[in-house]
């Protein structure tokens, strides 16, 4: 592995992504910047359609061909935006890996799981079929698939959802990647399995010194699994910082809304689940100013005029809001609620 430990492994600068949707071109992501050091973990949180998955696909270089990407994504200093697909193929599954949301459909039903786990090894390393198979069994064993040696030749439909997700994790880890992107890895799973899978991912990240980008709509998952987090809304990062800092001092009205809207255990009967009024804006017709303006309770005229700049409310904690003074004062009861 190359690069010193202090230099960022991944550095994203002013990333913009334009997609062609059925409703015309849409600016799915704009002005997203972050960096990630080796071994660091970063969470991306937001509602569906906020641009978090699109950002992940941009990192993987798997956006549709019609997508227009601007800005810069650097891995170990080398630029990924505009990289040819042939060169990107050498990185995917090798230095950057990804785990997807739907384990039920993410595996090819026609191939044995052993073959699918061994595939990145065969592709990126020059190990023999037998060696790749052996390694696949070891990986399956490591991710906690019972009877890995026996079941390596079984087909995906013979496994449960949780087991399949373990298989996709084994697949993603096969080539010891530097970065792991986990896009809602537990959303499609039973609640009882969710914790196990997240623990497994956390263990593996620590064990192999990988960096991880964890994408989730669930604040709880983010709170427990990452060191730093970014809250996305309407294609922009509205708040970012150390996970603790963001949870302690929510600077953006949207983050606060998201926090209030989560279902709580032990809430009194009859308590209405808080919702954020309004709906997520269509990416095809985003407002000119703050993307959250239409749903914000403390909106002002200047919010609609232009996209607010990022305000550093403390070291490494940035909020894209012009009214941080008010919003942060209102963030009462955020801790310990």
């Amino acid at each position: 592995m190359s690069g010193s430990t202090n230099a960022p492994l991944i550095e994203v600068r002013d990333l913009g992504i334009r997609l062609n949707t059925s409703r015309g071109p849409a600016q799915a992501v704009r002005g997203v910047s972050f960096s990630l050091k080796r071994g660091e973990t970063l969470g991306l949180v937001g509602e569906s359609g906020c641009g978090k998955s699109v950002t992940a696909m941009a990192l993987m270089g798997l956006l549709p061909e019609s997508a227009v990407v601007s800005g810069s994504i650097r891995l170990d200093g080398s630029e990924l935006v505009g990289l040819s697909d042939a060169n990107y193929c050498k990185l995917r599954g090798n230095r950057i890996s990804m785990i997807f949301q739907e384990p039920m459909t993410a595996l090819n039903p026609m191939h044995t799981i052993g073959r699918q786990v061994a595939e990145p090894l065969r592709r990126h390393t020059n190990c023999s079929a037998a060696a790749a198979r052996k390694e696949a069994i070891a990986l399956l064993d490591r991710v906690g698939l019972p009877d890995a040696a026996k079941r390596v030749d079984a087909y995906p439909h013979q496994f449960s959802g949780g087991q399949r997700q373990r298989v996709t994790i084994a697949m993603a880890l096969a080539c010891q990647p530097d970065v792991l992107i986990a896009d809602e890895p537990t959303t499609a799973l039973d609640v009882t399995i969710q914790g196990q899978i997240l623990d497994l991912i956390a263990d593996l990240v620590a064990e192999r010194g990988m960096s991880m980008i964890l994408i989730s709509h669930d604040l709880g998952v983010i709170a427990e699994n990452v060191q730093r987090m970014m809250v996305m809304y309407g294609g922009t990062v509205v708040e970012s910082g150390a996970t603790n800092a963001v949870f302690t001092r929510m600077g953006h009205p949207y983050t606060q809304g998201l926090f209030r809207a989560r279902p709580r255990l032990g809430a009194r009967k009859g308590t209405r689940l808080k919702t954020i009024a309004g709906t997520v804006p269509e990416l095809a017709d985003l407002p000119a100013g703050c993307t959250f303006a239409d749903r914000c309770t403390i909106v002002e005229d200047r919010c609609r005029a232009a996209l607010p700049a990022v305000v550093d409310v403390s070291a490494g904690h940035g909020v894209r809001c012009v009214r941080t003074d008010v919003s942060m004062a209102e963030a009462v009861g955020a801790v310990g609620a």
Partner: protein
Amino acid sequence: MSTPISASVDVGAATVRPQVPTGFWRRALRHRSFVIGGTLSLMVLGAALLSLVWTPWSAYEIDVASKLRPPSAAHWLGTDVLGRDIVSLLLVGARSTIMVGIIAVGIGITFGVSLGLLAAARRGWTEELIMRMSDFTFAFPAVLSAIMLAAVAGPGMVTSITAIGIFQIPTLVRVTRGSANAIWAREFVLAARASGKGGFRITIEHVLPNVLPILIVQATIQFALAILAEAALSYLGLGTQPPQPSWGRMLNDAQTLLFQSPMLAVYPGAAIAVAVLGLNLLGDGLRDLLDPRLSRER
């Protein structure tokens, strides 16, 4: 329940019968394959209707003296080996083709749709039996059953119509039953059953109207298949018999004269191709327009 119900339950909305979608014609006239297909189909239909009242020459009168004439002002596409005017033969041929097509598809729809609806309404062994029977009929393409019929009853229009009609049934059974089953699983049918309506009434009131768009699309495509089959049977001499003109028969006649008058083999085939292409495009267009859920690339 203490949580307020936020999402409205929309069962009532779905019981509304499917109507021609709003702005159907506006959308239709902008749909390329619908417009092209519709135009071609209308041309063939127009030719058939025209032949009822007028043809440039008689399509039946033989005039050996003026046989195999090249195209001229009098005979736009020339004459055949019996001196009959090609344009007139093509016009009357369109009539035979369309008639065989309509009757054969009619047979197919009558039996296919009823059996398909019955299979969906009854399920169980009725469904199993109907489906096995239709699988089985699939083993006999139109040409094969026409051969069997011709062997015992002699060739002719009735033979070809029957054979093509039988050949249409299995496809229509499958399509009808498939989409009818989907309708039977819908909430508004459950509601109708809960209110005590019988299988027959539900089929007529709810299932049939809902599968109608799919059947219209399928019937268009079956029509195209029927035209192809009719042409093949007439070409083989199993279908429409002389002196009644038919496109397939014209091709057979023309084949013996390929070296003298090659163009005679081109016109009737082109007429068949235009009719089939028109109906296929029309079917594709209707599929897109009537039911967006069906509009997958074939």
